[in-house]
């Protein structure tokens, strides 16, 4: 066999290795985003990690009369008063029931800070930005406005919410 012989199998293997290396390089460069995954009923949702300031166990919520039902009230967080909202109620679903697993996720975006009551906080994860898909077309327009996208997490479809747009929409609803 001559040295110049170039077997097809060798060329294929070479190409496979090249592609693999290229993929690794792409993955290294891939921008990752931090997400906080939580549940509301049987649905999985997430917020961008940079908009989540802290996660609290459920504190005593003081009702503020003559505000929309999705505003559950206010809480005292180390001397700061924060509102607490129920996203389920805002989206026209049944109210979120609190349990020992419930948490208040304090989110802040565009100068508005509020607590969001959730059933469970599942995870805080770094995920490649390109794993976020566009939201499904069947979502109604009100919800679609504050949905940033969707991704898969442990065989669950997770809806990524934009806290800023959610707060904006809530204010608009008045």
């Amino acid at each position: 066999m001559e040295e110049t012989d170039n077997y097809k199998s060798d060329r294929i293997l070479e190409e496979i290795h090249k592609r693999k290396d290229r993929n690794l390089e792409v993955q290294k460069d891939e921008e990752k985003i931090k997400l906080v995954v939580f549940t509301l009923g049987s649905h999985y949702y997430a917020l961008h990690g940079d908009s989540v300031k802290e996660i609290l166990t459920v504190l005593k919520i003081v009702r503020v009369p003559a505000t929309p039902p999705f505003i559950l009230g206010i809480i005292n967080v180390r001397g700061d008063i924060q509102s607490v909202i129920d996203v389920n109620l805002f989206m026209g679903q049944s109210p979120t029931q609190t349990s020992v697993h419930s948490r208040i996720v304090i989110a802040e975006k565009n100068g508005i800070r509020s607590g969001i009551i959730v059933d469970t906080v599942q995870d805080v994860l770094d995920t490649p930005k390109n794993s976020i898909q566009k939201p499904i077309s069947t979502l109604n327009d009100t919800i679609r406005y504050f949905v940033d996208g969707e991704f898969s997490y442990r065989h669950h479809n997770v809806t990524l919410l934009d806290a800023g747009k959610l707060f904006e929409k809530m204010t608009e609803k008045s």
Partner: protein
Amino acid sequence: MTTALQKINIDGFKALVFRMQDIQFAADLEQINELHEMPQWQKTEEEAVPLDRLIPLTTIPIVYKEPHVITINYQGTRVSVQIDQPEDITFIPIDAIRSFPPLVDNLRQHLWLWGVGLINDKPVLLIDCHKMAAECLSNQEAAWH
């Protein structure tokens, strides 16, 4: 020269704390003229507006446990409001007063519910009795027309 602004005590204010159902409210004592127990008030045969008619607390009218009436003098007119369960008279220092968080501030219906006082670290809703009296009078006027 002493201006009106300088006269305002910015250290805080003495407040009447009362409870309506599960919610604690506090009103500046300087804005309250009188506080009457209900049986004593009924002798006057004057009408008092139940607070829960001004600001619905539940979907149905509430049952008052310890009804009292506060009177407010606003621009020469006496306005009477029925409250429930007066609990305390306490000084709320300005350091313990907070404005409403943005979402509540943007969505609240009544400006006379103006902020939050922290009493023993518990949030208490603050009422501006003068603004509330103004709303009562304007509601009355609207009803007459």
